[in-house]
């Protein structure tokens, strides 16, 4: 069939199937009117702030007066600043402390809750998801009391076995692991929700076949569960990398980035610029983070893309 005849056929179908031109045009505009609110809102609250922030990153604007174009000064300042790299390093350490444990743990617990003969699995599931829906500030206060150097329950218990006292939130060695523990406690419920959904989608027949082949539980976990939740793991890695790059509330509430600047994450470092009305540097910092997270996410997806 040549192109012309295809076009003619299409025209024929159109002529029959389509209503009158004016009616169709009116319907088209109704459609555009219906989607217009989204575009307007997106332009106002999505696109405009994004481009304005990009514009700001090339200025030394501090919230008042006119914008002064300063080229790439903010970017070169940050890229040559030891504090910027230190904050990235702190975020990197947080990633290492949180994400691998959380990912592997979530898959294992999800498999356990879905497939084991444990009793009270529904209650267990609720208990594990509970911290995720509890207000962070309230939990942080409880955490501060638990990990207080002099009067915390943790050090009290360690003292009973002759250990400590440990400055959980007041020493450079322990501040990051303690914040990581808090973040794990707080956000593991989210990881569990994702992994539960993934594990529950694995067909039962696959497990039955594995059982017939004589695979034990450990083998079943590593040879069936883990490979079949790879897509979810990749998704979770991207999401958690994004989350870690913006990690702010946990260090802010627990240590304010200290002691010294040992727990100042990239999110908190960015906030410090904004808080000091150094909006240009803050904006530049955020775009550098976007680039970094984009690269890391692409690498994560590439590495974990399942083979069909």
């Amino acid at each position, binding site marked *: 069939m040549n*192109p012309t005849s295809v076009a003619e056929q*299409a*025209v024929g179908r159109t002529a029959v199937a389509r209503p009158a031109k004016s009616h*169709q045009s009116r319907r088209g505009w109704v459609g555009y009117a219906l989607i217009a609110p989204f575009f307007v809102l997106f332009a106002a609250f999505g*696109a405009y702030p994004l481009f304005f922030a990009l514009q700001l990153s090339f200025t030394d604007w501090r919230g008042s007066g*006119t914008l002064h174009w300063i080229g790439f000064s903010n970017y070169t300042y940050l890229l040559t600043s030891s504090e910027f790299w230190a904050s990235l390093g702190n975020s990197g350490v947080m990633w290492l402390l949180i994400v691998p444990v959380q990912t592997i743990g979530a898959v294992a617990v999800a498999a356990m809750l879905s497939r084991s003969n444990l009793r009270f699995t529904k209650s267990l599931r609720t208990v594990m998801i509970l911290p995720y829906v509890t207000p962070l500030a309230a939990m942080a206060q409880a955490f501060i009391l638990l990990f207080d150097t002099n009067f915390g329950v943790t050090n009290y218990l360690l003292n009973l076995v002759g250990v400590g006292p440990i400055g959980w939130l007041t020493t450079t060695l322990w501040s990051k692991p303690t914040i990581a523990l808090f973040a794990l406690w707080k956000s593991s419920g989210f990881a569990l929700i994702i992994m539960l959904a993934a594990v529950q989608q694995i067909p039962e027949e696959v497990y039955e076949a594995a059982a017939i082949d004589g695979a034990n539980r450990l083998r079943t976990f590593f040879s069936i569960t883990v490979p079949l939740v790879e897509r979810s793991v990749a998704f979770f890695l991207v999401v958690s990398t994004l989350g870690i790059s913006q990690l702010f509330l946990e260090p802010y509430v627990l240590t304010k980035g*200290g*002691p010294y600047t040992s727990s100042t994450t990239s999110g908190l470092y960015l906030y*410090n610029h904004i808080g000091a*009305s150094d909006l240009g540097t803050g904006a530049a910092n955020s775009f550098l983070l976007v680039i970094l997270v984009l690269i890391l996410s692409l690498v994560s997806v590439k590495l974990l893309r399942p083979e069909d």
Partner: protein
Amino acid sequence: MTGDTTIPSSAHSLFTRRRLLNGLAMAGGLGIASPLLSACVPGGSSGGDQKLGPSPSASAASGTVTLWMRDDDLFKVFKTVIPAFNRKYPNVKVNMVGVDVDTKLPATLISGTGVPDGSFYEDNNIGAQAGHLYDLTDLMAPHKSDTLQFKLDVATYDNKLVAVPWDTDPGMLYYRKSVLSDAGIDPKTLTTYDALLNAARKIKQKNPKARPILLEQDANLGMLWLMMLINQQQGSGLVDEKGGLTIDTPAFRKALTWIKTVADEQLGARSKFASTGQIAQCDSGIVSLVPWAIWFSFITQSGVKTSKGDWRVTLLPAWSAGGARSGVMGGSSFVIPQKAKNPELAWLFYEFAIYAREGYTKVYGPNNTYPNGLNTSLPSVKAALQGAPLFKPVAALGNQDLWSVDTAAAQAIPAGYRIPSWFNSAASYLGVNMQKMIDGKASVDEVISTSVDQINKNLVKRQR
């Protein structure tokens, strides 16, 4: 009909959609481009020299004024001023709103949306927003001589007075009466910082577990505390009148050396202000000497439990014989944004609340919120400080004559204190370096030289 004629017809909707999307893109592009072209910021204040004009008379003043207050007990206290204000200005409706000012005000000033007519603001934060605020120099002229000089200095940027000074937070020395008595120390002898060190040594000899002097663990608050010790010696703080850094000066060296001695000899206990740990240190007698701002009085009244009633207060020691017996640690003022709708009415309220006896008596005198009066800060008005006591003695501080001690300290604060716009950010350098020194990881010289380098590079040189 041929294919050529039908393609536009079948693509009609596509063409329209594209046109619509193009239109949207153009609109978006224009939205983005317009501020680029004008090099102006939507909602932003001009940052120029805007003076607030003469205020209307009591009979002519009318309208609604929206004032932001920090959303705590102060909000309740300032609301009690409104009826008295309305007796003088019956046609002004005061809409006082409790707000998280530190978080909301900068964003509001920058966006230019929902800007209040006036707002409470911490002195440390004013400089960063000075470009958004009215120059009140002319309006304040009649009150200048009745205001503590250091408060005027604090609120002055580029020779413009951009805030109405409100409270004064002088440094005081809080101590545990029983602990000093047991160690055979007469509080009246604590007139120099060397005497304070010796007292701490004596207390430690008596109780080896004691670390009598309180050292702040938070870098920001620690730096504010250091500023009190500096201002007490040289009037200025981090910068002089011309904005030059004053860190590499004898005053800094002396204060830092003293702090290092306290740390090295294990005479100091570190904790964060008002934390559970700090309360326990105070109650257990580990801490018994607290050179701190007047607002430590809150801890002695509402924080401590077993040591309540054992605390007393006196003037800070001096750094040298005959030197000042106080310095500034904190304080706040009221600001009037250039984008305010009724700035004149805001001025009238602040003028009444701060400078009229009826106004400041309502704030500091006994009320439902503070039955003995507000005693965690003081007015900055000389007439108030030199007048009859506004607040009463409290049992938690042994019913001593708080008013006399506190007001003497307030009036001893040296003039010349300046707060640079980047003050809060300096805590990441000077505050952090001081904490390192207390941990034994830096010398006094290192704190000074490193802080000077870091503040110059990251803050001073990055100001326009």
